[in-house]
């Protein structure tokens, strides 16, 4: 849209805005607020459902809804500030909205941060003429284990249902019935399930849709919202952690228009209670001869760590999780590499710098003409918010393709690699090169990693020392950093070969059987430091609460001192050192609360995990390629949150309509999937959108299967 400016007069103030600007925004440009409930540009076109935004427009006989009008040249608008008619209209609207509203603000969790409360105070009637009984409903209704609905408070603005149908496109939250009897509901008793459901609790302008975890947990005047970044997946959504009395009580989005547009996923929103998991470690554990792992003091643990490090004589291998901060990875690397000459590391996934020339903000996906999504892992399972960007691109008219061959003459082309494989982005970078996307406006490529900070960890590990060493013949000591590494079967296999193992872990259960020394770890919500997300954007994490144990940097520094290695115990100082080598000397303070996408040409990546063989073998006629993917709702944190268990994937195999058809398989039928004598039998789900020759199963139900498999209807059960 070319920016033809028009002049609008609002409450006697002249403003110039591009033609077509909404009147709500135009008023804002003039410094005037038009109150709204249903209007929310992120939900698509305005619907004019609530009538809160009434204004008087010269030449129009009746009051108009400001949210549905756009600026035209010469328009004269009067808001409630200068128009008695508009003021009376808004007053009347509020009186109607409140006819059935319970006004139970004293016990409502929205109280104090409620748009209905605020606008009623400023624009509404001081008392009610309603002398009849109000509509009452059962309350609260759990529309899922994480969201409570109080129907009495609902003002039917339809924000939540528009989110469900037009943003996350899950179509599960709807309005049923008509008129005054309309209610927000899901179908029958089916819980509202999906990656993004929690966003409706932030959209709801009243206390109708509330996060169950936060019910009666805090009041706006006794909480602090601490800005940080989500550390549970490579998107790195910007969030606020609501803290009350040293505890995280709730996670809110913190709109970063280039990354998340204010939408976060349910893992990021609801998994925070893992901070208080029952098996959370606070004291170190040391293996003793008779009693297994026993609690020891921190001093004793650091002594033991020193002893184990010395005893290994440099034959140390480090298994990283990709969820460490840049600073933790660097500090650990400096101790082990510079201090002890142990350079062997195992990264959880391949990392490649090849994509650095094709960087874009995630929001560029929305503006693309063609989006090519490659790979068989559902995007939402790896990097949920990316899925929302792809959906908004499609709504805006972009073609969503599954092969680069169909790009044609599209101008703005975005490639997205969603695994499996993909060599840390190198494969999709090749493709981008072939399509000559480098430097073309709006063109670029993304690789969706499986870890939140794989890139940052790899860069930091590479930066702390220039030396290299060969793989030791035997492993004297295995250092396992983080819960993801501790849960990885490959790491456990390595632990069996190692003479000793040190594990840094938040949760006791993960390493109980095989660690010799367990040092309690912290969560991303308790750390100060930086993360690099899948765009290559460096972002700032803040310690939103104090961890129940010393943070990693603290004791790494102490341990390092015993080997005469200089590691600062503060993130800012460690970052300064990394930054010299990797981030152009940027200072910690400059990273920013709402970080821009910068380029770091010096970021060198030298840590490569030997790539797993990428099977490109074409399945035979009766064979199928089984993709065993890591679901969004999985991992150590999610496993410890009771109310998220309903979101975990069902034990089932998804297959295409075509593959199901000739095998005579229907949804619900049992199928057997197997190769080399390993077989699983699970119910089938026919997915009409899945490509031929591919089947999908969540990794926790795959029993180690993956790649080319045989798939058939399970033999009929013989009834007894």
């Amino acid at each position, binding site marked *: 849209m070319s920016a033809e400016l028009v002049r609008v007069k609002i409450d006697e103030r002249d403003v110039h805005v591009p033609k077509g600007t909404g009147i709500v925004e135009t008023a804002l440009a003039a410094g005037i607020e038009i109150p709204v409930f249903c209007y929310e540009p992120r939900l698509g076109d305005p619907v004019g459902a609530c009538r809160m935004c009434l204004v008087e427009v010269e030449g129009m006989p009746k009051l108009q809804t400001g949210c549905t009008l756009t600026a035209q040249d010469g328009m004269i608008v009067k808001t409630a500030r200068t128009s008695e008619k508009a003021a009376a209209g808004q007053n009347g609207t509020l009186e109607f909205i409140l006819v059935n509203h319970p006004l139970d603000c004293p016990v409502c969790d929205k109280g104090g941060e409620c748009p209905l409360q605020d606008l009623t105070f400023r624009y509404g009637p001081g008392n009610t003429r309603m002398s009849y009984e109000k509509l009452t409903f059962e309350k609260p209704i759990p529309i899922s284990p994480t969201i409570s609905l109080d129907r009495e408070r609902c003002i039917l603005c339809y924000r939540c249902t528009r989110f469900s149908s037009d943003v996350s496109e899950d179509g599960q939250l709807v309005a049923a019935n008509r008129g005054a009897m309309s209610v927000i509901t899901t*179908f029958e008793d089916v819980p509202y399930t999906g990656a993004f459901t929690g966003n409706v609790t932030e959209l709801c302008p009243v206390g109708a849709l509330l996060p169950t975890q936060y019910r009666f947990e805090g009041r706006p005047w006794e909480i602090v919202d601490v800005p940080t970044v989500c550390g549970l997946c490579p998107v790195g959504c910007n969030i606020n952690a609501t803290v009350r009395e040293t505890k995280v009580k709730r996670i809110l989005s913190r709109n970063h228009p280039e990354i998340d547009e204010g939408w976060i996923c349910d893992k990021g929103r609801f998994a925070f209670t893992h901070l208080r998991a029952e098996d959370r470690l606070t004291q170190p554990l040391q293996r003793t001869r008779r009693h297994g792992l026993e609690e020891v003091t921190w001093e004793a643990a650091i002594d033991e760590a020193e002893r184990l490090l010395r005893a290994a004589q440099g034959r140390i291998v480090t298994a990283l999780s990709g969820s460490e901060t840049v600073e933790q990875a660097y500090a650990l690397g400096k101790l082990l590499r510079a201090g002890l000459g142990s350079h062997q590391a195992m990264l959880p996934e391949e990392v490649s710098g090849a994509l650095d020339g094709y960087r874009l903000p995630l929001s560029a996906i929305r503006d693309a003409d063609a989006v090519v999504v490659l790979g068989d892992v559902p995007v939402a399972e790896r990097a949920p918010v990316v899925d929302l960007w792809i959906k908004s691109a499609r709504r805006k008219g972009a073609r969503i393709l599954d092969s680069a061959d169909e790009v044609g003459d599209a101008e703005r082309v975005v490639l997205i690699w969603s695994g499996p494989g993909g060599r840390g982005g190198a494969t999709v970078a090749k493709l981008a090169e072939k399509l000559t996307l480098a430097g073309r406006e709006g063109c670029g490529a993304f690789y969706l990693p499986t870890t939140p900070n794989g890139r940052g960890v790899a860069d930091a590990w590479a930066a702390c020392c220039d030396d290299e060493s060969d793989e030791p013949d035997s492993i004297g000591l295995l250092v396992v950093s983080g819960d993801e590494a501790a849960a990885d079967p490959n790491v456990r296999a390595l632990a069996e070969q190692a003479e000793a193992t040190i594990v840094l872990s938040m949760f006791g259960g993960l390493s109980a059987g095989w660690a010799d020394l367990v040092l309690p770890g912290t969560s991303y919500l308790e750390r100060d430091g930086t993360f690099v997300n899948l765009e290559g954007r460096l972002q700032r994490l803040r310690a939103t609460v104090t961890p129940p144990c010393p943070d990693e940097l603290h004791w790494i520094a102490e341990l390092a001192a015993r080997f005469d290695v200089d590691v600062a115990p503060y993130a800012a100082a460690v970052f300064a050192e990394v930054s010299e080598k990797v981030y152009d000397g940027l200072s910690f303070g400059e990273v920013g609360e709402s970080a821009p996408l910068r380029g770091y040409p010096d970021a060198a990546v030298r840590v490569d995990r030997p790539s797993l063989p990428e099977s490109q073998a074409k399945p035979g006629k009766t064979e199928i390629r089984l993709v065993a993917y890591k679901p969004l709702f999985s991992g150590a944190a999610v496993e410890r949150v009771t109310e998220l268990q309903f979101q975990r994937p069902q034990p089932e195999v998804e297959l295409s309509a075509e593959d199901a058809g000739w095998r005579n398989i229907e949804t619900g039928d049992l199928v057997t999937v197997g190769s080399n004598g390993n077989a699983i039998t699970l119910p089938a789900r026919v997915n009409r959108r899945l490509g031929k020759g591919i089947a999908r199963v969540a990794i926790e139900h795959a029993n180690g299967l993956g790649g080319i498999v045989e798939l058939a209807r399970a033999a009929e059960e013989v009834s007894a």
Partner: protein
Amino acid sequence: MTTFFDEVQEIRKRYPAGARSATLPALRLAQEKHGWLSREAIEETADALEVTPAFCYSVASFYDMFHLEPVGRHTIEICTNLPCALCGAQKVVEAFESALGISAGETTADGEVTLRAVECLGGCGYATVVAVDHRYRQNVKAEDAAEIVEGLDA
């Protein structure tokens, strides 16, 4: 034999703008098949339209013509919107209630007759309008109720 799924695909062809536009005829077809829109009927319709059951339910619950509860073999539907109300629709409802021994919204114990008060039937000029098994009766008065009930075929 064409299945429900196939029939819905036929209906969808008439609405190139998308599956959502075919929701009303598809739901009507499902209701004809099942007598009312049970959970299964809604799920089956949603599957054939490739939309969510919640969406179908939301549409079905908006329109009076869709039954979300089982209905009797016969239906008597009395319009109670404004024009009909002005012509005595409320009295007509009461007359039917006493003729059948049930309240509006209920079905007789033998499962034969469902009595409903519904929104405008589009025959306002002939108020009060009563749809007896989907056939309109015009200018119905309270005293006609007994005869109409009698006239339902057994």
